[in-house]
């Protein structure tokens, strides 16, 4: 019998068994009663293939995060559906109301704030292409419509909400040579929906999403990517990124 194993009761004072320092050593992998040492070693044994079968997915996520396109995808992948869709539905509603009522000030302010918080490059635009996020895409399209307002405003376009929304998006498509341009809907809402469809479906060779992003940057930068960005934040749902503040992801357990 090991000298450490002279336990007479689990509720006895800790000092009657092992000193705290010895326990720390044991937990750190050194010393302690033989049987207990072996039990802890078994519990911390190296992984089996079954325990590592998620390696490929984890590595793919890591590799994907290395590229700007990948980062967009990851943000979208972490979107919590309910929260993100709710947030984006609200954004879509605000955009529709803003444009339909000529609320250019509201729309413009949202556009500017979006541009200020998300630095994007033109090639990030068309990455809004993964499936299963139609509602979010529509919301992004609504923001795209808002961005169109901004672009039109910068170009000296008229300021009536209905007309401005269509004109803003139409301008982006025009810059792309008019290929696949879907704007020109009867109202702000229709324009937003069309734009959303184009943004989602347009791959790297697509017309509207990419073209708007590349040729009419002021309009596209506040479009679909904004929806992606806001969705990513919503997906984190209270978890903040790491970095200098290492405890950004704080435990939610009891103190």
């Amino acid at each position, binding site marked *: 019998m090991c000298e450490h194993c002279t336990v007479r009761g689990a509720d006895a004072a800790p000092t009657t068994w092992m000193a705290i320092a010895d326990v720390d050593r044991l937990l750190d992998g050194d010393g302690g009663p033989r049987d207990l040492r072996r039990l802890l070693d*078994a519990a911390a044994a190296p992984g089996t293939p079954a325990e590592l079968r998620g390696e490929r997915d984890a590595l793919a996520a890591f590799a994907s995060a290395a590229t700007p396109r990948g980062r967009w995808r990851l943000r979208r992948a972490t979107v919590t559906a309910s929260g993100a869709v709710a947030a984006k539905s609200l954004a879509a509603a605000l955009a529709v109301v803003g444009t339909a009522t000529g609320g250019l000030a509201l729309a413009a302010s949202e556009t500017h704030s979006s541009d200020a918080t998300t630095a994007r490059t033109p090639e990030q635009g068309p990455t809004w292409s993964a499936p299963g996020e139609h509602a979010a895409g529509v919301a992004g399209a609504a923001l795209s419509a808002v961005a169109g307002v901004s672009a039109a405003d910068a170009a000296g376009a008229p300021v009536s909400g209905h007309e401005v929304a269509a004109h803003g998006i139409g301008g982006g498509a025009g810059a792309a040579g008019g290929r696949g341009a879907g704007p020109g809907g009867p109202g702000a809402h229709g324009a937003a929906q069309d734009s959303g469809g184009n943004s989602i479906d347009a791959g790297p060779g697509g017309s509207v999403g990419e073209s708007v992003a590349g040729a009419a940057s002021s309009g596209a930068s506040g479009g679909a990517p904004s929806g992606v960005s806001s969705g990513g934040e919503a997906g984190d749902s209270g978890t903040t990124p790491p970095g200098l503040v290492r405890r950004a992801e704080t435990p939610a357990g009891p103190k």
Partner: protein
Amino acid sequence: MPALASPTAAPVAAARDQTLLEDALGAARAGDEWAFVALYRDLQPRLLRYATALVGADAEDVTAETWLHVAKDLRRFSGDLDGFRGWVTTICRNRAMDSARARTRRPADPAEPADLVALADLRQTDGAVLDGLATRWALDQILALPRTEAEAVLLRAVIGLDAPTAAEVLGKRPGAVRVAAHRGLRRLAERLRADSDGVGVGHHGPGRHGSGERRGAADV
């Protein structure tokens, strides 16, 4: 009781040298995929065991979500290897609690996560998840401890966190974690001694070390 002398040989060798892993952490932050794999292989098995203690059969989903988060934000992480393990474990614990809440279909109660251990049952996990019989048995012994003690032992001895980092993960003082781990180890030692003496007070036996104790853990 399965033999503990030789835990199941791991076909996948994990890089456990601290220096190498520190280097791997730095390289992974710079985008090196192989370094990321080294970190994954080192931590994932133990993280999965910890998650199994918290949410049982949902452990794989929880760790998958954890690594997705890590993959996204690792490049912005700054800290040493202990800090990295603590960060990852914190994410895992949060995801586990989310999972437990979703499973119970009741409003979240951050003050009472004690049900986590009550939900854990290794018998419900995929048998392939924990192939090592000795590892499974050892974890079952630890999971039979009261929740606070089991978590302290797992974080310290299985995940490999130091006491201050484990305390941060749990939101407790380091001293409280030390005491909890101490008591947990003492119970384990007593149980092992009882088994070796043929007393029959195993983790499936009667008394305070049996399933009743796990139920008690939920009442902590």
